[in-house]
């Protein structure tokens, strides 16, 4: 079946970058031709060609939903392509499952790790490859330790995976692939879960792997990383390859244009008018996680009017629980929460909204009812205003929605079920619902996770508008770039405590990274210090 090719190739002629002779003479280790993959009505890959040379680090760049992961999952045998062919070492192959891929020397570390938590590092690495009936634990451990040493993958072979950090688990996944003699290593957004120092360590490992002749595919949507580590960059957009360029000769601006398809103006933070009075005060706040174990251990934090305070931290250190406290969906064990002078320590969601708190949570789908319409979801938090003697005023509901849809440029109709909306449009609905009330305090978590560059810039712009209006904003994000761009002050949470607060100007990724890893403890001069108790 001959497939329709992407229109982009005409729009963006592949830059004719001279390729070093040594590479052109080799056959690519992996060559994918005309890969098609459809999910329902979505064409995730439409006729994609991809070549991976031996011993190169090849970045696969593009926005969420561009088709990068799909392409690599096809290569690893997780998806079966609808059309297209794959050759390894110039020989056509049929990859029906990860088992086939592994036999061909292809390994993949997906975004969700597949490790058995109760087993040790070594056990996880050799799982499925034990070979014989009897397990030779000693020699296996020695092998794993040697490989770890050689590639700079510091991890204790005897440690239980349960006890490892996300970064360490990633190293185990890489070791697992190498133990299976991978010559091709695919890493799907490996830096998304790492703190800056761990990213450095990962890059060090990748360089060593490259020196040993392993080819690496590095999926990412971060330009800065890609231009640093990769030899070659292939950019994808809407299921097509836009172009493939040598990393040394690609400018970030050019790459950005290839990713988005047009030039995007980035918003920038205007000067802070003047920090107003304290609007949100957390004083020695304690709370449990879902399992009833103590999670927040004495958090004290203050957000002033007209200020964005960014909260940085590795996932699972209490930021979700902290947001839920202010959203009114989690109970405070000890301490006090004040909003503009009102005590809201154990307030319900309804009372939090009355107190002037606008809440945009981490999980979009848990804050809207997917099967209700856009108009109904927009009114859901203030339904009493849409009733006449208890009867629902559908006309008003509709007018209200039409107005917000126009104002926030949402691509949806009032009667669309909200679950049919894209992530960006759904987030805009939630944003509109909250900002319409002109909240005095805004708590917003991972506001742009999974959104494309355009939607991200839009939401950043709106948040800065709110700051100019005088709202006190607590911005919780795992994206350091986002925090550095928007926040006036940045606080770092680790182990349920605030381990440092600093003005954004003096925050660097390195300094934040050390705090996020729990390796340092800093406190703002004069700030209340309750964190050291307990």
């Amino acid at each position, binding site marked *: 079946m001959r497939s329709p090719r992407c229109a982009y190739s005409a729009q963006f002629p592949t830059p004719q970058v001279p390729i070093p002779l040594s590479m052109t003479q080799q056959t690519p280790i992996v060559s994918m031709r005309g890969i098609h993959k459809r999910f329902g009505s979505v064409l995730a890959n439409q006729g994609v060609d991809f070549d991976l040379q031996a011993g190169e680090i090849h970045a696969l760049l593009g926005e969420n939903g561009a088709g990068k992961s799909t392409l690599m999952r096809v290569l690893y045998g997780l998806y079966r392509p609808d059309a297209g062919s794959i050759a390894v070492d110039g020989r056509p192959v049929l990859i029906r499952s990860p088992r086939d891929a592994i036999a061909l020397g292809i390994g993949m570390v997906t975004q969700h790790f597949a490790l058995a938590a109760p087993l040790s590092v070594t056990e996880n690495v050799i799982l499925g490859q034990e070979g014989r009936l009897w397990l030779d634990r000693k020699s296996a451990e020695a092998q794993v330790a040697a490989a770890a040493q050689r590639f700079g993958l510091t991890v204790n072979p005897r440690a239980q995976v349960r006890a490892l950090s996300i970064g360490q688990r990633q190293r185990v996944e890489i070791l697992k692939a190498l133990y299976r003699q991978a010559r091709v290593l695919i890493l799907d957004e490996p830096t998304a879960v790492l703190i800056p120092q761990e990213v450095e360590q990962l890059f060090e490992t990748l360089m060593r792997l490259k020196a040993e002749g392993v080819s690496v595919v590095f999926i990412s949507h971060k330009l800065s990383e890609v231009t640093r580590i990769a030899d070659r960059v292939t950019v994808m957009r809407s299921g097509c390859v836009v172009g493939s360029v040598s990393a040394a000769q690609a400018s970030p601006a050019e790459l950005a244009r290839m990713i988005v398809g047009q030039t995007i103006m980035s918003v920038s933070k205007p000067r802070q008018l003047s920090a107003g009075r304290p609007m949100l005060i957390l004083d020695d706040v304690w709370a449990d996680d879902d399992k009833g174990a103590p999670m927040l251990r004495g958090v004290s934090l203050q957000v002033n009017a007209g200020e964005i305070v960014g909260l940085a931290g590795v996932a699972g250190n209490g930021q979700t629980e902290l947001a839920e406290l202010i959203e009114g969906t989690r109970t405070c064990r000890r301490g006090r929460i004040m909003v503009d002078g009102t005590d809201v320590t154990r307030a319900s969601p309804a009372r939090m909204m009355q107190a002037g708190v606008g809440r945009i949570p981490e999980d979009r789908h848990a804050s809207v009812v997917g099967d209700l319409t856009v108009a109904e979801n927009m009114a859901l*938090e203030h339904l009493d205003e849409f009733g006449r003697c208890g009867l629902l005023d559908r006309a008003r509901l509709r007018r209200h929605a039409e107005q917000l849809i126009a104002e926030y440029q949402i691509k949806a109709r009032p009667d669309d079920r909200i679950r049919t909306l894209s992530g960006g449009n759904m987030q805009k609905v939630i944003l509109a619902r909250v900002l319409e009330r002109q909240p005095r305090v805004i708590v917003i978590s991972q506001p742009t996770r999974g959104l494309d560059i355009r939607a991200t810039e839009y939401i950043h712009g709106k948040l800065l508008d709110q700051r100019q209006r005088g709202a006190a904003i607590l911005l919780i994000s795992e994206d350091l770039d986002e925090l550095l761009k928007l926040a006036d002050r940045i606080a770092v949470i680790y182990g349920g405590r605030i381990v440092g607060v600093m003005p954004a100007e003096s925050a660097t990724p390195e300094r934040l990274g050390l705090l996020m890893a729990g390796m340092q403890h800093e406190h703002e001069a004069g700030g209340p210090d309750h964190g050291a108790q307990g």
Partner: protein
Amino acid sequence: MALKVERRAAPLWLQPLLPLLAVVITFVLTSALVLLAGANPLRAYYHFLIEPLSSRVSALEVLVKATPLLLTGIAVTFAFYGGFWNIGAEGQFLVGAAAATAVGLNAHAIPPWVALPLMALSGFAAGMAWALIPALMKTRLHTDEVVTTLLLNTVALLLVSALLNGPWRDPISQWPQSPEIASTAILPKLAPRTRLHLGFLIALATALVVSVLLRRTVFGLRMRAVGLQPKAARFAGIPVERMLLISALASGGIAGLAGMVEVAGIHYRLIEAISGGHGYTGILVAMLGNLSALGVVLAALFIGLIDTGSQTVSRALGVPVYLGEIIQATLLLVTLAVLLLQNYRLRWERRG
């Protein structure tokens, strides 16, 4: 080629047709049994569906059969709408019938316009009380209401049985049935020489009120949000526990009212077989009616028709009455399967 199942909602135009599709599939599936029983399926379905409507008496009998199902169907709809999976309409029906009988047995000195509302009220209250137990267990202890409501059905049946074998045993016949209720506690007839009684209008009115409440009010939208996604509803400031409690109590109350209507409209006394599964059939009616009032009315009438038809067909063609029950049960299974599958679609895929 391989058959593949994909997650995908059925197009909008297809959704109202799905229950109809279920009926057609059911008839195809059960035709073999009809043949086995020695009858011509087409003739059997004629007697099932057309013949009962051909005379005034049997057409009105369809309405009589539909009355309790309409009420239990609405009861189940109310609960499912709010996300309370009430499988206990049967038990709530039974305690409602018992409570109404208690009033009816002692209503000799009371005029009907007092006795009947009092009976309705006590039936409603008893059903509510019966639903209160699993509702509190769900909101306070997070116990699965499917299990608790189902188990309470047996308890209710034993309770009725204890009453009928004990204090209420009919002194005249010595059968395990209650004495007749007072003549002032009997629902008036709507048409002479038929069994059609005021209860049918009560059921229609209940359907109308519930429909307006759930579809047209702010309360109904809140209830819907709770039923669809409790977590998001709680986030939006809706008191989820209170809404669950309301939907459970309203559901139990309406099921209890159904019990009262059967006592005061048909049997004039409490018998062990007073329900005979009306509570369970209510689940079928609610699902078949897609949880909409109009749908529930149509579904109740349809089941009422099959109920009447199974008697006609057995008389006309000499097939067992149980055939009607088999067709009903098959219909339930097919309906559930069709409703489940409407979120998926089948697709042929070429092997790679």
